[in-house]
């Protein structure tokens, strides 16, 4: 019972925390962010396993975490509101070459981020070549160039 409580509590805590941090936090993982994630994983491990390092405990815990993930996936597909709440909704950041500054500020995205995505995916050189730039639910920026 204790293991279920630990697994579910840590899952929900991390779910809320990473939702609070914003979409861009994981989409633009730097080397240091990667190290930070490893440290978070290490800190979480002790809380999840306690003093029981047996294979059984680890297997049961993995099953619990996967079970919670599956449950959320089912609930999200069934309830659109929950899906929006947990995953967020896409947001247009550039409209016909014009950056939407207030949206960008609130989403912690700047023009450099948008131009980087435009260069990588479409080889674009200027902002005015972008018809729409959209901050997607997973934190990536998708670019729709003028035809």
């Amino acid at each position, binding site marked *: 019972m204790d293991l279920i409580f630990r697994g579910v509590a840590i899952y929900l805590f991390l779910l809320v925390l990473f939702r*609070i941090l*914003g979409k861009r936090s994981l989409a633009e993982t730097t080397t240091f962010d990667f190290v930070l994630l490893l440290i978070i994983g290490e800190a979480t491990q002790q809380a999840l396993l306690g003093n029981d390092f047996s294979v059984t405990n680890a297997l049961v815990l993995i099953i619990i975490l996967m079970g919670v993930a599956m449950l959320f996936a089912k609930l999200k597909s069934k309830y659109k509101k929950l899906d929006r709440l947990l995953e967020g*909704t896409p*947001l*247009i950041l550039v*409209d016909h070459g014009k950056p939407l500054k207030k949206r960008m500020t609130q989403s912690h995205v700047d023009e450099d981020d948008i131009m980087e995505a435009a260069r990588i995916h479409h080889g674009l050189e200027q902002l005015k070549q972008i018809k729409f730039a959209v901050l997607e639910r997973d934190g990536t920026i998708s670019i729709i160039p003028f035809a």
Partner: protein
Amino acid sequence: MQADRQIEIITHTLELDENLTQQAKGWKVQKICGILIAAVIVLTASGLFGSGPLSWRKIEKAGVILQYETFGRVEKEADIRLQVDGGKALAITIPMRYLDHFKVEKIVPDAYESRIAKGYVTYTFRGAIEGKNIIHFFLYPKKAGNIKGIWQVNQQHIQLTHFIYP
């Protein structure tokens, strides 16, 4: 909503579920949570979750000084420090119901004798020398929640209260 009004409203041909009201709510929640995270860091530094000035408690009673941490965590060592004036044998009586919440890891120095009677454990320290005698109880909380107990140290009753975080 104020934040909602500030966001640029545009019309577009894209088939996407852009919910600006929810976006605005989300940003507001993010800001509130940012403040909460800062508050948690400050409270942690001050000892609300253990190991800080808010957590340490010192009780002084007729030659007995007892220091302990009010806030603890499950399976994290708690040090209860007793300082007693020397010159006489020392007996510490602790309720079993209190000790049941802990795993007694170590008592430094070792007690000369321990006795169980009527739901209480009495630790006796023989030949206490002149000056100040210091005794440490190293305990590991086993469960989360409130723990209360009255210790009897040489006829002095001292109430200890702990809150153990999971």
